């Protein structure tokens, strides 16, 4: 299996930390050349550290909410690699709070990061993915990271729920659009449950400060206890799913949603 993504080129947004980092590592471990993108400057120590971990990887600084930034990334991928087989739209942030307390500006920032980024990444890279997909047995693969919060609601998570629900249906629409047009790109969404990432801890810190009754640790423990398997996921458990969807092993999967949630939504 070490070579099942040999010769394939992948781009992962939000790739320096958390789930995105694990995705990049899993794709690289399966033989792909991985282009990491994130907000960090290209000469930052975090970038050097990540690239040293992954043989043959590259980094492009990318604000995923900016169309021009995506176009720049596309031009560089075309020039440096000449192909793109796998696009993982992973970048995202969280936002919690009562609807009454949400500022429109914050809502729009979240939507831009979680949803516009998927639209822009897909739109910008579609031609290159399609060209590349025509040269491989089962085409290219787009994997959009939604969430169990794109399947079921939770109190005070409305903006995040809305953005991730949108990603779920955007994915299905893409899958049908490309299939109908004979464009060789599969498109699927992944729905992680609660994953132990820096983003999760930051979010729980904010929730704790706002709520004032529970510590971040207590909130995280409650999440683990609220999950049927009584633990959080590790990022690599999401990365491996993405590596599967990226590979020819998932050749008949398009428009599907893969739920990786330790049983949370089985209830």
């Amino acid at each position: 299996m070490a070579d099942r993504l040999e010769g394939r080129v992948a781009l992962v947004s939000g790739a320096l930390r958390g789930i995105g980092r694990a995705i990049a590592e899993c794709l690289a471990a399966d033989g792909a050349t991985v282009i990491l993108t994130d907000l960090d400057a290209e000469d930052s120590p975090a970038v050097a550290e990540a690239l040293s971990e992954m043989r043959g990887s590259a980094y492009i600084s990318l604000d995923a909410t900016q169309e021009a930034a995506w176009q720049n990334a596309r031009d560089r991928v075309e020039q440096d690699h000449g192909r793109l087989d796998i696009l993982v739209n992973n970048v995202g942030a969280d936002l919690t709070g009562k609807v009454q307390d949400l500022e429109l500006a914050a809502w729009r920032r979240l939507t831009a990061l979680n949803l516009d980024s998927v639209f822009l990444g897909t739109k910008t890279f579609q031609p290159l993915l399609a060209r590349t997909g025509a040269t491989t047995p089962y085409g290219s693969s787009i994997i959009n990271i939604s969430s169990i919060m794109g399947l079921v609601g939770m109190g005070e998570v409305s903006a995040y729920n809305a953005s991730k629900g949108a990603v779920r249906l955007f994915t299905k629409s893409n899958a049908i659009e490309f299939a109908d047009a004979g464009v060789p790109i599969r498109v699927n969404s992944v729905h992680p449950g609660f994953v132990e990432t820096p983003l999760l801890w930051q979010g729980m810190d904010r929730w704790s400060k706002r709520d004032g009754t529970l510590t971040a640790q207590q909130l995280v423990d409650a999440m683990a206890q609220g999950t049927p398997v009584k633990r959080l996921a590790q990022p690599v458990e999401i990365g491996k799913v993405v590596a599967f969807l990226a590979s020819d092993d998932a050749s008949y999967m398009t428009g599907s949603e893969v739920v990786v949630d330790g049983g949370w939504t089985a209830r």
Partner: protein
Amino acid sequence: MSNFDLTGAVALVTGANGGIGSATVQALADAGARVIATDMPADAQIAGADSYRQLDVTDEAAWTALADHIAGSHGRLDILVNNAGISVTGSIAETSLATFRKCMAINVDGVFLGTKAMEDLLARSGADRKGGSSIINLSSVGGLRGAAYMSAYCASKGAVKLFTKSTALEYAALKKPIRANSVHPGGIDTNMMDTIYARYVETGLFADEATARATVAAGHAVGRMGTPDEIATGIVYLASPAASFMTGSELVIDGGMTAH
């Protein structure tokens, strides 16, 4: 890459003589598992299988005997693929209760009995295996969406979908290291589909089998039928440690059919 490596694992596949079943046996074996294949015939040669056993999945005593046999011969079971199933195609008006019950017995009782009989073995083996043991139940897109003239089949596959989720939650609550997930294939080129086309023609739904197949194929966004291998790879994934946080989930492999 150890993500999908099943070396050292023992797997049981029911309905192993069929299209998806035989592809699953081969794929699990390719990933390193020792596979016990079962089906209705007294004997069968199934490529990749370590051994073959006759099994009527509706027979509880047969399941118990098989569990004893596996405990004795292999000492463990890591992967149970409840794949055995039949289709029933016909209007509700012309479907007899006996036919309906036969469909439920094979497609649903079979999953219940297999899960129940193998639970202890799976729990023991799962305790020393990364990601635990894995039960994979074959549902269908027919367990997610209805289809005309497929009421018994759809009912049975819907039952498998929810039985799987309940199984996942129960084992998690009991801290048994067994994951349970369902797989939902779209239209796959198998003998079962050929039977369905023939029945479609008999019921007058289509003029001929070629038209039936073309119509079914066109129901997939990708405009083609799937192959058994394309389901087997998904099953290997769910069986492997790569899916360690997946339990109670549905893996839909349908060329975009239910994305509509």
